[in-house]
């Protein structure tokens, strides 16, 4: 602690007074204090860039943290403009104030991670840097169709996806055995899901589990059930949310709770956390994403589970949601050009080292589907998707997937409210859907940002 300047000394009355004068001067200037922040040191060519993320360097120093640390170390070894990682725990990154307060005051990170749900908010705020010049054509072509488009506006790419994360239904083999059920009983339809879940529900266990906490993640996991009935939230620039497909999906989630076969509150980190729910025996089936394969591998090695495609409504077709976070650069950051270069290098390099780096991330330290063809080939060559749950994800589930929609908060919120009200408050799905549709339309009437998809 010797290196720490004594806080007491910094607190002399004089320094407080001096601070006071500074603030008075600032407040006399009034709003410029606020608005000037954005431009303080933008567009510069500073020698250090901050990279905010929710992986590393974390306290547990797990493999995912290590991947971030190693990648950055590799870059720093060969480049003048250094990257400095800042770890923010996932919960605070997703729901906290850290990023927002920073951007609000022009102190945003130079490089950071966003999910599709965040894309338009940041794009419309004018803080996303066009990665164009940094990204060679070769790299562009290596990405699977649709992925870059979901992070582009007017043909310009603003973010590089690091992974593809489809959703599936996980089930516990032990729970099925205990209930006297076999693989033949695995549900294919919603009705079967409700019936089987009934049998699996016991004193300590729920038959099936969907995300219960409101948020972008819950919406993300719910969309596939709407898509299965060929519904969508927005069609042709207008809300299409009050469709039978959305109504029946709202009703399905509500029924699982009404029948007491699904929990009202998930454990641990919620629906995305298979270890805490399925793994602890609190749920017999759980909707979650491909990342859970790696989680189970490290934290519940001996737990026997399988996956199936998300059950569909009668007459519906299979569908899932393809999530995945992307690296983006802050156009008002300290060195946006270098930040774009870093991103293109870290995720887009087509040389052997670049492909290996991506393979490590997507199939070794974490389990995702690689977003790039060359990486997929490299992973296949190592047999990463040769068997088990991952094979099913690749062959059966991912092909039915659509990229996660990039709805701005004003579209996300009415949908989230409808889901919550129907799932947990026994609201009438038709009415909830109509209310949400009306709100979305009101917003769309005055919306002027980039196209919503």
């Amino acid at each position, binding site marked *: 602690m010797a290196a720490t300047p004594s806080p007491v000394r910094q607190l002399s009355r004089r320094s407080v007074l001096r601070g006071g004068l500074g603030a008075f001067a*600032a407040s006399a200037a009034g709003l410029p204090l606020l608005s000037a*922040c954005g431009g303080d040191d933008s567009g510069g060519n500073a020698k250090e860039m901050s990279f905010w993320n929710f992986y590393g360097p974390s306290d*547990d120093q797990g493999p995912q943290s290590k991947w971030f640390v190693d990648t950055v170390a590799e870059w720093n070894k060969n480049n003048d403009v250094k990257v400095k990682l*800042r770890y923010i725990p996932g919960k605070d990154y997703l729901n906290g104030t850290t990023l927002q307060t920073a951007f609000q005051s022009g102190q945003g990170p130079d490089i950071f991670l966003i999910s599709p749900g965040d894309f338009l908010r940041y794009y419309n705020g004018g803080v996303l840097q066009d990665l164009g010049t940094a990204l060679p054509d070769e790299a562009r072509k290596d990405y699977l169709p649709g992925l870059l488009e979901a992070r582009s506006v007017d043909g310009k790419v603003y973010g590089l996806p690091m992974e593809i994360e489809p959703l599936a239904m996980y089930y516990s083999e032990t729970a099925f055995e205990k209930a006297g059920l076999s693989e033949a009983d695995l549900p294919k339809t919603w009705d079967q899901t409700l019936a089987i879940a009934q049998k699996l529900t016991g004193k300590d266990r729920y038959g099936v589990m969907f995300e219960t906490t409101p948020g972008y993640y819950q919406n993300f996991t719910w969309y596939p059930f709407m898509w299965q009935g060929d519904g969508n939230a927005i069609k042709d620039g207008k809300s299409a949310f009050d469709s039978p497909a959305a109504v029946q999906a709202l009703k399905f989630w509500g029924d699982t709770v009404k029948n007491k076969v699904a929990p009202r509150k998930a*454990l641990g980190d919620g629906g995305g956390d298979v270890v805490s729910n399925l793994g602890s025996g609190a749920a017999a089936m759980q909707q979650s994403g491909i990342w859970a394969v790696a989680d189970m591998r490290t934290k519940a090695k001996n737990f026997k589970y399988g996956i199936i495609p998300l059950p569909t409504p009668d007459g519906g077709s299979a569908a899932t949601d393809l999530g995945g976070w992307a690296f983006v650069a802050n156009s008002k950051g300290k060195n946006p050009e270098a930040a774009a270069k870093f991103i293109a290098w870290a995720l887009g390099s087509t040389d052997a080292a670049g492909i290996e780096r991506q393979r490590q991330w997507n199939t070794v330290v974490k389990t995702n589907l690689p977003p790039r063809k060359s990486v997929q080939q490299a992973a296949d060559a190592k047999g990463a998707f040769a068997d088990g749950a991952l094979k099913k994800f690749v062959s059966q589930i991912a092909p039915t997937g659509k990229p996660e929609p990039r709805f701005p908060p004003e579209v996300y919120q009415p949908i989230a409210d409808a889901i919550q009200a129907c799932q947990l408050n026994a609201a009438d799905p038709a009415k909830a859907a109509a209310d949400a549709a009306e709100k979305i339309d009101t917003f769309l009437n005055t919306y002027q940002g980039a196209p919503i998809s």
Partner: protein
Amino acid sequence: MKIRFFPILAHVLAIIAVAPLLWILISALKPAEDVFNFGWPSTWTLDNLQYVLLKIPMPRFMVNSAIVAVTVTVVALFFHSMAAYALARLRFPGRGIIFSGIMSTLLVSLPVILVPLFLVAKQLGLLDSYAGLIVPSIFHAFGIFLLRQYYLNIPRELEEAADLDGCGYWRRYWSVILPLSRPVLASLSVLFFLANWNAFLWPLTITRNPDLRVIQLGVSGMQGQYASAWNLILAAAVIAAIPTVVVFVAGQRRLVDAMKTTGLK
């Protein structure tokens, strides 16, 4: 012997009140797989506490929290007692206005001014530093108010003795008022320490450097990284709570007296 009803009731209620805390303590001492077992643990283990202390920089978080909480407490009590002395004992133009001005800041709480406060802190160069954790937390009207109430009740004769000796106001404050406030300062320091040790929202907003993380951020971060490991989360919670319990037990006798002498009546 007549057994009195109310004392027994009080004991029963006290047990109910602390039961949740005790249950957490017990659960933190259970092996991971027993954490939801409703009963006395079959085996006791210190593994959870050990893991949290050794594998996670909990000690570092605690040092940070201690630095912040102690500094804020000391400086705040000093400033507050000066302000309270002036408000209670000195006559000057604008006293009523200044007093109501100070009191009205009690209506403003941190969540509602988070962003503008962050902007001010940034302007003053306080981001990501101990100063940023400490300085904005010092100023709070509650302490001024309590101390003022206390000073109103100190007999004026005591001060006048000093006046007769020709002491200035500083000497009167320093050698008469301050020594007399020792008990109330001691008990307020317990409350201040607790409040600052437990602070969460402001440290979350103002710090980025992981080395500056305070204990509450550490505990909250556990929930993200070890979501499935209730045993570890609870162990971290217990560790975060231990210093507050110790401080409270050490200072608890003074608390009631403090409330009394501050004239909250």
